[in-house]
């Protein structure tokens, strides 16, 4: 990790360790689940440039499967989360191999169509409980020893899961594989001409993104003891786009910040009724029009500018060279 990211990550962990002693753990768990979901989504939108409008199917699908496995089959918690996540991976493979054959708006539309079909499946399949969802999913001890009925314990378990997912995303982005993804985002034909089978890369990224979205959904269903149609509805797919966009797509921390902002808003503005919708919409509009880089993106751009200005200033002091002006312009 570069310095700034490392510092930010350590600060985040420190904050995450202290937070539950001041804030309601369940609210924090919700932030973490959505943060992981948004990170998974960002991997696709921010680093491969693919806008999926159907990611809810992986999030919600895993949440249904995990809930069913825990509640009805009585499997241990950790294995159920794993199974739900694998299911999402499988769905990702199927959906991905259909969707990556298309680009841009069409890609978004295919994913939307597939997600709508999955929504229909969730509404009709007997095990999902229709409108009621799967309720009262038990929180059985993790590995048979960690009592996750206790919210505080659960919080740290979720934090561990989130950190794992976050690091997977980070590793992926900074691996050679991630470099190829970025190359595809910037210029796919050129990546093809360099001999990369871009479809393979896109599919792998899609499956990985689906898997992590599934991990988030599976964790959410255990933490909130419910899996419902909300998790698979198209509005959920829209929400994760909003989170990523607000936080800053293509930045490693952006989705986390975005998820925190949106979940906090929904949580603490719930009393304002429809105003939540309106405020969300206004934020959407403002971000798209004025802050396309999102919170984290704008922040790091600002820090870059400041650093560069500082450098420039120092250089000016050191040597009153004409080259400085040119460098200043390039910033």
């Amino acid at each position, binding site marked *: 990790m570069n310095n700034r990211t490392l510092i930010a990550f350590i600060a985040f962990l420190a904050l995450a360790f202290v937070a539950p002693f001041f804030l309601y753990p*369940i609210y924090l768990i919700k932030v973490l689940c959505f943060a992981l979901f948004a990170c998974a989504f960002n991997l696709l939108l921010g680093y491969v440039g693919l806008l999926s409008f159907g990611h809810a199917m992986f999030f919600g699908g895993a949440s249904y499967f995990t809930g069913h496995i825990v509640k009805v089959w009585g499997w241990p918690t950790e294995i159920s989360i794993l199974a739900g996540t694998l299911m999402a991976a499988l769905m990702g493979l199927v959906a991905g191999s259909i969707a990556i054959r298309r680009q841009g708006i069409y890609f978004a539309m295919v994913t939307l169509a597939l997600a709508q079909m999955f929504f229909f499946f969730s509404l009709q399949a007997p095990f999902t409980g229709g409108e009621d969802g799967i*309720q009262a999913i038990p929180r059985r001890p993790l590995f048979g020893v960690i009592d996750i009925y206790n919210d505080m314990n659960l919080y740290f378990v979720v934090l561990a899961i989130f950190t794992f997912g976050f690091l997977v995303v980070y590793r992926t982005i900074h691996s050679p594989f991630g470099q190829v993804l970025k190359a595809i985002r910037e210029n796919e034909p050129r990546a093809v001409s360099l001999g990369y089978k871009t479809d393979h890369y896109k599919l792998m990224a899609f499956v990985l993104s689906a898997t992590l979205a599934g991990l988030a959904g599976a964790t959410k269903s255990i933490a*909130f003891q419910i899996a419902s*149609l909300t998790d698979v509805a198209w509005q959920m797919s829209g929400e994760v786009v909003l989170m990523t966009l607000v936080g800053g797509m293509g930045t490693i921390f952006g989705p986390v910040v975005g998820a925190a902002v949106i979940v906090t808003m929904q949580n603490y503005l719930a009393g304002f*009724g429809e105003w939540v919708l309106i405020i969300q919409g206004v934020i959407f509009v403002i971000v798209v029009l004025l802050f396309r880089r999102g919170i984290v993106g704008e922040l790091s751009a600002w820090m870059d500018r400041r650093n560069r200005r500082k450098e420039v200033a120092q250089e000016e002091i050191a040597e009153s060279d004409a080259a400085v002006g040119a460098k200043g312009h390039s910033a």
Partner: protein
Amino acid sequence: MVSRKLLYGLSAIAFMAATSAHAVDVKIGVLNDQSGLYSDLTGMGSVWAARKAVEDFGAADKGINVEIVFADHQNKPDVGSTVARQWYDQDGVDAIFDVPTSSVALAINELTRDRNKVFISSGAATSDLTGSACSPNTVHWTYDTWSLANGTGRAIVETGGKSWFFITADYAFGHALERDTSAVVEEFGGEVVGTVRHPFPGSDFSSFLLQAQSSGAQIIGLANAGGDTVNTVKQASEFGIVQSGQNLAALLMFITDVHAIGLNDAQGLIFTEAWYWDANDTNREFSEAFSADNRGNKPSMVQAGVYSSVIHYLKAVEELGSADDGAAVVAKMKELPTDDKLFGQGEVRQDGRKIHDMYLFEVKSPDESSGAWDYYNLRATIPAAEAFRPLNEGGCSLVN
């Protein structure tokens, strides 16, 4: 005799002194739909009713400090249970009221049992709350699918509507309503000739109506709610369903729905409700105060139910001197007879079912109506003893 009275008086004074020293703190949460399909018939109107009940009960004079909070569950079980969890774990809420939408109510039901708090549902429909899902912490107040089916279904079969076709909202609540109504129809000698399930929520019901029409059934039973019912009724009128000899039975209908449809299309509909604002002077007086604060609307039966249930809840809390043990409060509520100005006298049964009269109403024609909100004629009163599912038939584990 005299000494006994004196003793009562003394103990009452002592009690009051004791309570004013340790005032009882109660926090009530009204959880309902503040923005969606059911916000007009529950929503802020229910919050108003809860406040009014606290005021009329004179809680402050009796040494009970009541605080009311409210939230929007958006008709989603996950949103509802998240709010309820936070209320119970974090904010010290003792009891949750209202909760329309069956799926949300079932989720709150489980959570409330787990946390040993109190859940009193006025808005939810599913009769499972006092059946297979019944809980020592839950009271179901205003109505349920069984009582609607029983009231409307029976009345219609007995007046000759023997063959039925159902248009059902394709989710748990619709299925429950259809199930309960079919049972009543068949019990009283009618038959169900067909059923069609529509996606929820739907907007175009014409093709379902067409299927109902070609089935030749005398009665088209609408096992849906809110906007879905409103649309079905309007479209039925458009397609001349009633003129061609079939009748509609709206199984769950609220006065706000009738208001939305308008009398032209709604006239002649028959359905069951627990309360009507224009039934007597007390109700009218209550409704006038309600109207003044709620954009001129009249209260629905659900909102009236919230008022009535909060009064009874506070009574039990007063009697116990504490709201901490949810199961104990509900047990006390079952022990005390209910009595309030809107629902009169009644009781809360062992399975958590509140028992009172139900009413069969018929929607007035535009000529009969004197204006906005003057909508119902009373067709029949269903006495409390017959209005709800018999205690031993629900499969509730609390009944032995």
